[in-house]
């Protein structure tokens, strides 16, 4: 920490928040608002004379309210910057007439009661988001009597009570009577692995933190009875299992089972825990003098703000979503933005440090290039054709367009990731996706169906997942009938409705659109647009009297070679059901297809009937309007799953 304070190339801005980030990778323009400190951090020697005369006392955040501090204070003895700070909200009044004792007590005259907030602007090439995580607060849920029973504390409160710099000078005391407890229980997974509390995940750190706490206790107080109530003990990393065994050797008791209830004895303020020991199947009760809740972690409250500022995305658990969970774990999906520490997911110090160095390495790699290379798979907008409707920007996961009302959209080459979704979305043919242009793909479709179109199925496959799955199938020598031809696009989002209709118009019996599973999409969520387009095509095909099942949709990951083979086999079965007459009729219809009104969507979330367009079975799935979800047939695992509700509306539209 001290190294940061004195490093010539680090400008440390405390009491500061990023308020705006403009620009893009290589050239982010950052605005920071720094709150007034009221103490000159360079001049202050942290002598503490100011605090001595401060008449105000408030709970000390650093000790979680277990001690008091003054309105002018040092957050903790080793704080960096090593300077006092005045919190105006705690102060009697910054007006020297109201108080001003601190300013008079400071010999060096470092205290300026007229200090103002400042705004700073600077430019950077890369950003590392290290906004962290925060402990779960069991007070919200009233878990295990926390907040009601004085001797039920959280893991963080335990840290402060055990710390020699803490409110008790390192003596572990009960809050009810300031007495050392003779027995103590740790309850694991408080705010972890519990979907009801919104924290379905494992918090990663609490098992080891409890084992560490138990060791600390046994080293200081060998006679203290220490019990740990757990679901599973996750001591998975190097040296962890050994720590667990060491604690067991020192007498720490591990009981598999989470107490259903904690009761306080009104006389002694001891706590009684009722628990089903899942190893013996017996209900037990344990009386202890203190309970520590091994509270998990959740995303910091600031995560949402940084997400908004940088157009990042969140994992369903609320932590920041990485570009790829396996291969780009410290890259955000936004180029030039990297993750370090708990903001990306629960992690301990070692993992945070490791990821921070990795993020620094990734940022340094970017900066070391001197200039920034942008892949040529970007897009060009023809200003003569663009009608400034803004549809491209709406579907762009990267906000890679400069857009002003009434002016042609302007792609930002450095930001564009090259999925081509905008080119598929543009109704005015104004966007060209380099290396995957409309002309090129239409030429491929025509060539594919030039001879005996009735004998093949046309498959659109995305570069990252489904095309890669075809490779995986090949490497494994998975066999399927030689009846399919693949067209590769970078993302399934590039597949325009026009391409599918062109294939049917040229006599294709069956078309498959395939891409990554929702969680794997290499362009954040571009394949949601694929699903939307396929769903709309199903409606249109049906309204025109073309069997919608002739258009299939599958999500196949790069690893799912088997799934690819199976899909190809199923596709061939489907192709055999399409008669030459049907193909001719389709061609006829598509020569002059009538307009089809969009089918109304259900307005409320809830169970809705769906039909699988592969196996034909009907079933119910949860549906949330405006929130596309990956849908899988519970019978055959196909993703060609179509909403059935309001079918009448589509039929009536076709009748018009």
């Amino acid at each position: 920490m001290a190294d940061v304070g004195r490093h010539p190339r680090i400008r440390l801005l405390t009491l500061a928040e990023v308020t705006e980030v403009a620009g893009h990778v290589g050239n982010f323009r950052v605005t920071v608002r720094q709150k007034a400190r009221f103490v000159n951090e360079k001049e202050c020697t942290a002598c503490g004379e100011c605090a001595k005369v401060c008449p105000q006392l408030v709970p000390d955040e650093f000790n979680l309210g277990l001690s008091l501090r003054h309105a002018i204070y040092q957050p903790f003895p080793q704080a960096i910057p090593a300077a006092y700070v005045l919190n105006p909200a705690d102060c009697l009044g910054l007006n020297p007439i109201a108080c001003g004792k601190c300013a008079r007590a400071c010999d060096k005259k470092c205290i300026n009661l007229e200090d103002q907030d400042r705004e700073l602007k600077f430019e950077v090439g890369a950003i590392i988001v290290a906004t962290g995580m925060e402990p779960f607060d069991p007070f919200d849920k009233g878990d295990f009597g926390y907040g009601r029973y004085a001797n039920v504390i959280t893991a963080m409160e335990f840290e402060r009570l055990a710390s020699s710099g803490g409110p008790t000078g390192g003596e572990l005391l009960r809050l009810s009577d300031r007495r050392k407890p003779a027995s103590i229980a740790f309850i694991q997974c408080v705010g972890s692995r519990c979907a009801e509390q919104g924290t379905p995940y494992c918090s990663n750190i609490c098992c080891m933190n409890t084992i560490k706490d138990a060791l600390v206790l046994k080293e200081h107080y060998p006679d203290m009875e220490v019990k740990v109530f757990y679901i599973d003990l996750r001591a998975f990393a190097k040296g962890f299992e050994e720590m667990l065994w060491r604690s067991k050797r020192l007498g720490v008791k591990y009981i598999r089972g989470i107490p259903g209830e904690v009761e306080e004895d009104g006389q002694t303020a001891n706590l009684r825990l009722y628990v089903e020991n899942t190893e013996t199947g017996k209900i037990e009760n344990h009386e202890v003098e203190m309970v520590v809740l091994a509270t998990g972690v959740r995303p910091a409250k600031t995560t949402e703000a940084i997400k908004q500022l940088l157009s990042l995305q969140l994992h369903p658990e609320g932590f920041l979503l990485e570009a790829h969970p396996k291969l780009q774990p410290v890259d955000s999906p936004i180029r030039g933005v990297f993750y370090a520490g708990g903001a990306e997911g629960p992690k301990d110090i070692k993992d945070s440090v490791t990821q921070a160095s990795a993020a620094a390495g990734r940022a340094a790699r970017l900066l070391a290039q001197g200039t920034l290379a942008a892949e040529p798979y970007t897009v060009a907008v023809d200003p003569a054709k663009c009608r400034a409707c803004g549809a491209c920007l709406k579907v762009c996961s990267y906000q890679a367009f400069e857009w002003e009302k009434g002016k042609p959209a302007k792609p930002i080459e450095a930001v564009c990731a090259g999925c081509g979704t905008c080119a598929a979305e543009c109704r005015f043919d104004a966007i060209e996706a380099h290396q995957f242009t409309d002309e090129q793909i239409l030429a491929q479709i025509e060539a594919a169906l030039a001879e005996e179109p009735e004998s093949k199925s046309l498959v659109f496959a995305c570069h990252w997942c489904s095309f890669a799955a075809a490779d995986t199938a090949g490497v494994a020598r998975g066999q399927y009938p030689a009846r399919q031809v693949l067209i590769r696009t970078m993302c399934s989002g590039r597949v325009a409705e026009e391409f599918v209709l062109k294939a049917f118009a040229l006599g294709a019996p069956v078309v498959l659109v395939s891409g990554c599973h929702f969680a794997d999409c290499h362009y954040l969520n571009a394949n949601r647009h694929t699903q939307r387009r396929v769903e709309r095509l199903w409606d249109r095909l049906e309204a025109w009297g073309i069997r919608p099942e002739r258009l299939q949709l599958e999500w196949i990951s790069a690893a799912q070679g088997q799934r690819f083979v199976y899909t190809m086999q199923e596709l061939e079965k489907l192709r055999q059901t399409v008669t030459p007459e049907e193909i001719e009729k389709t061609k006829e219809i598509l020569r002059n297809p009538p307009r089809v009104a969009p089918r109304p969507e259900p307005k409320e979330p809830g169970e809705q009937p769906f039909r699988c367009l592969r196996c034909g079975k009907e079933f119910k799935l949860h549906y949330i309007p405006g929130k596309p979800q990956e849908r899988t047939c519970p019978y055959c695992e196909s993703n060609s799953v179509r909403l059935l509700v309001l079918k009448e509306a589509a039929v009536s539209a076709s009748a018009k």
Partner: protein
Amino acid sequence: MSTQVSEPRIGVFVCRCGTNIAATVNVEQVAEFARSLPGVVYAQTGLYVCSEPGQKEIQKAIAEQNLDRVVVAACSPRMHEPTFRACLAQAGMNPFLLEIANIREGCSWVHTSEPERATKKACDLVRMAVAKARYLAPLTERRFPLKDAVLVVGGGVAGIQASLDLADAGHQVYLVERSPSLGGLMAQLHKTYPTMDCAI
């Protein structure tokens, strides 16, 4: 906007990949078929087109036949696209004037029991690649200036480590922390595992 080259000069190179492709797909027939396609002025087979001699053949043909588009019918583009792009660049061609027909992972390896259909499919894949090649346009990687500075948001253990690494590596760092001090959650910990020492 790209348009079709009026008179493209496309060269097609069909790889045998030892027997990986040639055992199932009749590569000579595929090359013969390629010669019949509009725009194709040259087509040949090769034992291993990706090998050094195989690439030399491509470069030789580019020079001798004055090719302006190259189609390689071989393994998946996920495998050797960078190889062949570099090969074109070396021959003085724009590396993006290349299209690959995947006749190995996507054909010979998955249709071993039906060589005739596999050959037909390989022809289709080559026809598609040639059709796309006619519309390929030269592309250039763009380069943008970079600001040699990094913003680190958050002064906990991760932000501290990232800042020090970057600053030590010579980059300017702006470390923004919301609270009055560095340290984050870490600073509040009494002892830390697995070393059992203090956090700060």
